[in-house]
């Protein structure tokens, strides 16, 4: 039997889609989300004041995204509708980050498998609890995989390098100023210059706030906070505890994880698939480097 003209194996199609999405995501700048003593801190270098990468979803839930703006904006709006309709139907306490993460995962996974082009986005859904044990950070990739992150998450741009720097410096129960310092250090290449205040998007989910926990830190408030961070905190002596464990993946395949491992080693695509299931997150630093010219 002869192959039809233009045949591509399903493995090849999935691999191409994943590579395409990864390149798109790696083109932008990184976003960092991490726990601090009173809640969760979001930091994103973002020269635009109008196009937010970080936003509020509900009382205790925040959202951060990298990739194509129009695509993650749709996710954000849908998430707000989901949260508001559930909070109105039941009670405000019945809206959870886990439910929202699952909604996103199923949609991302379906688009990844069924559509010609997958979404070029990576998303963090973070929820602040009554105590720090109740905090949750879910990272979702373009293929619908959910990663239940402990303590911190980095995505977009050179995500792996940022995550490594973040892991080296992250400690539990840091003050807000220390956490911001750690985030900025992680977002800055060694020897590089930090983004100016006007180009930083910073927000917190502060468990001590009433009603709505989400708060954007801007202007004078952010400058005062940055002034407190002039001295970097000492490097921790004990190994950091943060590590990501994969949760229920919507459309994750072992092939895509194997690929990302290959990419990070710099090998050509089309290598072996089905490697260790706990490979690095599927955002390889492949493609053009982040030179800061992209608005996202």
């Amino acid at each position, binding site marked *: 039997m002869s192959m039809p003209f233009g045949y591509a194996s399903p493995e090849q199609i999935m691999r191409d889609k994943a590579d395409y999405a990864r390149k798109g995501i790696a083109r932008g700048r990184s976003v960092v989300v991490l726990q601090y003593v009173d809640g969760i801190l979001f930091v994103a270098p973002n020269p635009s004041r109008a196009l937010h990468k970080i*936003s509020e979803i509900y009382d205790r839930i925040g959202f951060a995204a990298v990739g194509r703006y129009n695509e993650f904006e749709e996710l954000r709006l849908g998430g*707000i*509708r*989901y949260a*508001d309709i559930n909070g*109105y139907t039941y009670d405000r306490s019945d809206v959870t980050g886990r439910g929202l993460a699952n909604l996103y995962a199923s*949609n991302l996974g379906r688009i990844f498998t069924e*559509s010609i082009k997958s979404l070029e986005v990576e998303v963090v859904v973070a929820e602040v609890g009554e105590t720090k044990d109740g905090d949750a950070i879910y990272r979702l990739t373009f293929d619908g995989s959910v990663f239940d992150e402990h303590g911190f998450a980095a995505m977009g741009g050179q995500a792996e390098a940022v995550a490594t720097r973040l892991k080296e410096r992250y400690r539990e129960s840091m003050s807000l100023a220390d956490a911001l310092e750690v985030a900025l250090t992680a977002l800055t290449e060694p020897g590089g210059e930090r983004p100016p205040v006007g180009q930083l998007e910073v927000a917190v989910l502060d468990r001590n706030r009433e*009603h*709505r926990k989400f708060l954007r830190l801007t202007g004078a408030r952010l400058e005062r906070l940055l002034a407190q961070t002039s001295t970097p905190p000492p490097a921790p002596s004990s190994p950091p505890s943060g590590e990501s464990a994969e949760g229920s993946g919507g459309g994750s395949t072992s092939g895509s994880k194997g690929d990302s491992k290959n990419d990070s080693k710099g090998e050509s695509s089309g290598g072996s698939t089905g490697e260790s299931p706990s490979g690095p997150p599927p955002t390889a630093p492949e493609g053009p480097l982040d030179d800061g010219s992209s608005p996202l």
Partner: protein
Amino acid sequence: MASHRDLPVGLVNQLFQNNGSSSFTEFVSSYAPELLPRRGEVLATPIGDQVPHATTIVAATFAGGVIMAGDRRATSGNIISQRDVEKVFRADDYSCMGIAGTASTGIEFARLYRVELEHYEKLEGRTMSVQGKANRLATMIRGNLAMAMQGLVVVPLFAAYDPVRDEGRIFSYDVAGGPYERERFDAIGSGSIFARGSLKKLYRDGASVDDIVMTLIQALYDAADDDSATGGPDVNRKIWPIVSVIDADGFRRLSDDDVAGHVQQMLDARVISPDGPIAPLR
């Protein structure tokens, strides 16, 4: 459930369909219309007297803000159905609404209105203008007109801090909508005639927050004095009026202890002068 294959490729859920409106009510009316307060239903008989009614709400402005207060009584006909009902609701950080009329519908409106304001704020990334908030509430009240005709009347009083003008603003409504902006003070509900008369004599321009709180508590007492559906302060059960202050720092509800202090002061003075403070004749 329809297969997702019937829908266009992309985000396959109505949640992700952008209908171009930032209104939560409009979204719900297409997504789950049964969740909205009843509209256009026809009741076999008007049930006005059989469901609890909320009564008197008063509000007054001060320099840089506004205060709203409400009594705690709900009545069904001649029965007191609840002694500690709450009728002043926080709408968002800089506004609140009080309700008079059918309690259940009013509470439902307050819940929907809060989500409505917050939904707009999150989708648009900005706070709605005070006039916009007042107009939105008018549309909701107008939507209830058919039910109001059958006895389920709800009339809100809306108060907000306007950051553009740096002042408090008060809007009132009728069963068909509104809004009507009010200068200085206003009252709604069954005791509003008496409360407004009291406010007219006691309100002073440029009064402090403390004085305005006292003015409102006096007005509520005067309403309770002459209107059987308005509850006075219940000293034995320690049930005090709800008093909420909105200024540049946002919405805050005064603590029971704080209100109790004001009420005690007023009651002590009324032992000597039962009709309350006497306004100068000229």
